[in-house]
C-alpha cells in the first residue's frame, strides 16, 4: 500500500467521522438560527431518540418502520421540550436559556442511564456490510450511507426553507422575530416547530451514528464537542457551513492525529481549536455565517 493510498484512506476516515459531526451540527445550527442559543442538550436528545428507536426494534418492530416512528416521536418530543422547558425562560437572558439546556443535558443523560443502563447496546446497521474499494482506498457502505443521508437531510432542509411557505415563515422568525409577530406570525409556534425539526434532524444523526459508536447514554457527548467545533467553523447560522465545517474538522483532526507526530492521537482534539481560531480571527462569523448585520 503506497503512502498516497494511506493518506487517502485517512482522508476517507476523516470524512466518515466528519459526516457524523456534521449531522449533529446541523441540528445545533437549526436551533441557533431560531433562538440564538446553543443547545447543549442537542446531543442528548439525539441519544434519547436513538433509544426510542432501539426500544421499538427491541419490541419487534423492523428498522424501516421504527425509523419513521422515531422521527415522528422526536419531532413531537422536540416541540414538547420547547413548550415545557424553553418557553418558561423565553425572554430571559440568553445565558439563562443556555444553562437550562445544560440542566436538560444532565437530566436526559442521567434519565437514559436510569432507564436503559450504561451497558452498550448494539444498534442495527441500516446499510449493507462491506464497502467499495477504489484503488486500494476502502470506503465502507456505512460511511457512504452516512454521507448520503446527511446530504439528503441538507437537501430537504434547503427545500423546506427556500421553497415552502412554512419555510419562509421560519426564516422570517429566525431573521427578525419581532417583525414576524407584527406580521401576525405566531412566533412561539414557529419556535416549537424549529425545536421539533432540530430534534428530528438530531434523531437522524443518532440513528446514523449508533451502529458505529454503539448506543449508550454517553454516545453523543463526544460528538457534541466536535459538532460545536463544526458549527463554529462553518458559522452558526449556516446549515451548509455546519456540514462543510464537520467534514473539515473530521479530516483535519484525523490527518493531524495520524501524520503529525508531535500532535499524535491524544492532542488531535486541539487541531480543530487552532483551525477555528485561525478562521475566526479572519472571519469572526465563521466560514459561511452571515456577518453580524444589524438586527433592526
Amino acid at each position, binding site marked *: 500500500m503506497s503512502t498516497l493510498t494511506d493518506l487517502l484512506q485517512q482522508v476517507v476516515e476523516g470524512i466518515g467521522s466528519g459526516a457524523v459531526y456534521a449531522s449533529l451540527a446541523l441540528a445545533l445550527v437549526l436551533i441557533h438560527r431560531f433562538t440564538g442559543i*446553543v443547545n447543549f442538550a442537542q446531543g442528548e436528545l439525539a441519544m434519547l431518540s436513538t433509544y426510542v428507536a432501539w426500544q421499538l426494534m427491541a419490541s419487534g418492530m423492523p428498522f424501516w418502520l421504527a425509523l419513521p416512528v422515531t422521527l415522528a416521536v422526536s419531532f413531537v418530543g422536540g416541540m414538547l421540550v420547547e413548550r415545557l422547558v424553553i418557553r418558561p425562560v423565553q425572554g430571559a437572558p440568553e445565558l439563562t436559556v443556555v444553562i*437550562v439546556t445544560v440542566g436538560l443535558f444532565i437530566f436526559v443523560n442521567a434519565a437514559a442511564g436510569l432507564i436503559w443502563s450504561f451497558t452498550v447496546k448494539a444498534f442495527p446497521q441500516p446499510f449493507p456490510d462491506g464497502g467499495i474499494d477504489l484503488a486500494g482506498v476502502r470506503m465502507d457502505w456505512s460511511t457512504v450511507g452516512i454521507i448520503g443521508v446527511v446530504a439528503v437531510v441538507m437537501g430537504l432542509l434547503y427545500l423546506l426553507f427556500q421553497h415552502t411557505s412554512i419555510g419562509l415563515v421560519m426564516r422570517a422568525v429566525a431573521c427578525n422575530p419581532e417583525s414576524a409577530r407584527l406580521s401576525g406570525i405566531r412566533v412561539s409556534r414557529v419556535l416549537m416547530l424549529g425545536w421539533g425539526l432540530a430534534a428530528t434532524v438530531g434523531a437522524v444523526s443518532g440513528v446514523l451514528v449508533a451502529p458505529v459508536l454503539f448506543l449508550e447514554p454517553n454516545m453523543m457527548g463526544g460528538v457534541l*464537542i466536535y459538532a460545536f467545533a463544526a458549527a*463554529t467553523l462553518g458559522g452558526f447560522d449556516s446549515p451548509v457551513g455546519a456540514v462543510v465545517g464537520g467534514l473539515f474538522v473530521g479530516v483535519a483532526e484525523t490527518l493531524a492525529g495520524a501524520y503529525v507526530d508531535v500532535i499524535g492521537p491524544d*492532542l488531535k482534539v486541539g487541531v480543530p481549536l487552532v483551525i477555528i*481560531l485561525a478562521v*475566526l480571527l479572519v472571519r469572526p462569523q465563521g466560514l459561511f455565517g452571515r456577518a453580524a448585520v444589524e438586527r433592526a
Partner: protein
Amino acid sequence: MRSMTAVLDRTRHGRFALAALLAAAVAMAVPFYFAPFQVFQLTMVLVYAVALAGLNLLVGFGGQISLGHGAFFAAGAYTAAIMLDRFDTGHLATLPVAAAACFLLGLGFGVPALRLRGLYLALVTLSLAVFLPPLLKRLEAVTGGSMGLTVEKPQPPAWSGLAEDQWSYFVVLAVSAVALLVARNLLRSRVGRALLAVRDNESAAEVMGVRLSLHKTFAFAWSAMFAGVAGCLYTWVIGFVSPDSFSFVLSITLLAGLVVGGLASLYGPLLGAAFVMYVPSVAQDLSEAAPGVVFGLLIIAVMFVAPTGLAGLASRAGGAVARRRAGAAASDRSSVAEPPPESTSEPSAPRTPVDPESVEAEPVGAPPRTEKE
C-alpha cells in the same frame, strides 16, 4: 423617596460596617462550630466563589462568555502543584506565581477574544477546556501525567492550635476575602465602569473614548487570574491534581454556577458556589439511583423561578419590599398616585436588571410575552 435616600445615606456607613462585622464574625466562628467535613465544604465554596467572581468579571460585567475557565482554574492548580512538588517552594509562594501565570495566560487569550463575539468566543474557550487535559497528560515529565500529583496541604502552625481543616479554611477565607474585595473594587474603578459601558453599548462606549480593546483584553486577564487563584487554593485544599479533575465539565459547571447564582451581582458568585457545592449532595439524597436526574431538574427549576439567578431572586424580593414601602410612602404624600401599571400587572418581569446598584436602568423593551391560545 428622596428624603428616604438621604436617611439611608447617613446610616449607610454604619450599617455597612455592621453587616461586614456580622459576616466576619460568622465567618470566623464557623470552623469552631461545624464538623471538619462541613468546614471543608465551606472551604470549597469559598474556592469556587473566587473562580466565579472572576468569571463574573468577564461574563456578568464584560458581557463575554467563557466556557474555558476550567482551563485557567487548572492552570492555577497545576502551577501550584508543580511548584510544591518539584521545587518545594512552600504554599505562600505559589499564590502570586499562579495568579501571575494565569493573568498572562488570560492576557494571551484576551487578544483573540477581542475579535470573537458571544457564542464564538464561548465555543473557542470551550475547546481550550477540552484540549487542556490531554495536554497535561502529554507533559508527563512536569505534570505527573494521568496519575496526577499529590502535594502537601498547608499545615497549621503549632501556636495556632488549629486542626488542618480549620487552618485551610482560614487561609482560604483570607485569600478569598481579599480576592472578592479586589473584584468588587475593580468594578467600582474606572476599569469596571468602562467594562459596564462596553457591555451595555459597545459602539457608544467606543465613541465615548473607552479604549475598548484594552479593557476587554484586561477583563479576560483579570478573570483568568481569579480562576488561577481559585485553582491554586484548590491545590492547597485538596492536595491532589490530575488532568481528569479538570475536564470541560468543570468549565460548564462554573458557568452554570455563575448564572444560577446571578450574573453581574456582587454576591451571586457566593450563591452560585454554594449551589455547585451543595446541590449535588442534595440531589443524591433525593435519589440515589440517579442523582443526575434530580440535579438537572434542580438547575432547570432554579432558572424557571429565578431567570436572573438566585441573587436576582433575592434582590427582586428585596425590591418588591422596597417598592411596597415606597408605594406606601408615596400614597402618604399623595393619595391620588396609583402604582405604576407594570408593578401590579407584572410583578416579576424577568428582564428587570439584576442588580439595581450596578446596572443602569435601560430601556429593556417589552416584557416578553407568549401568546395565550
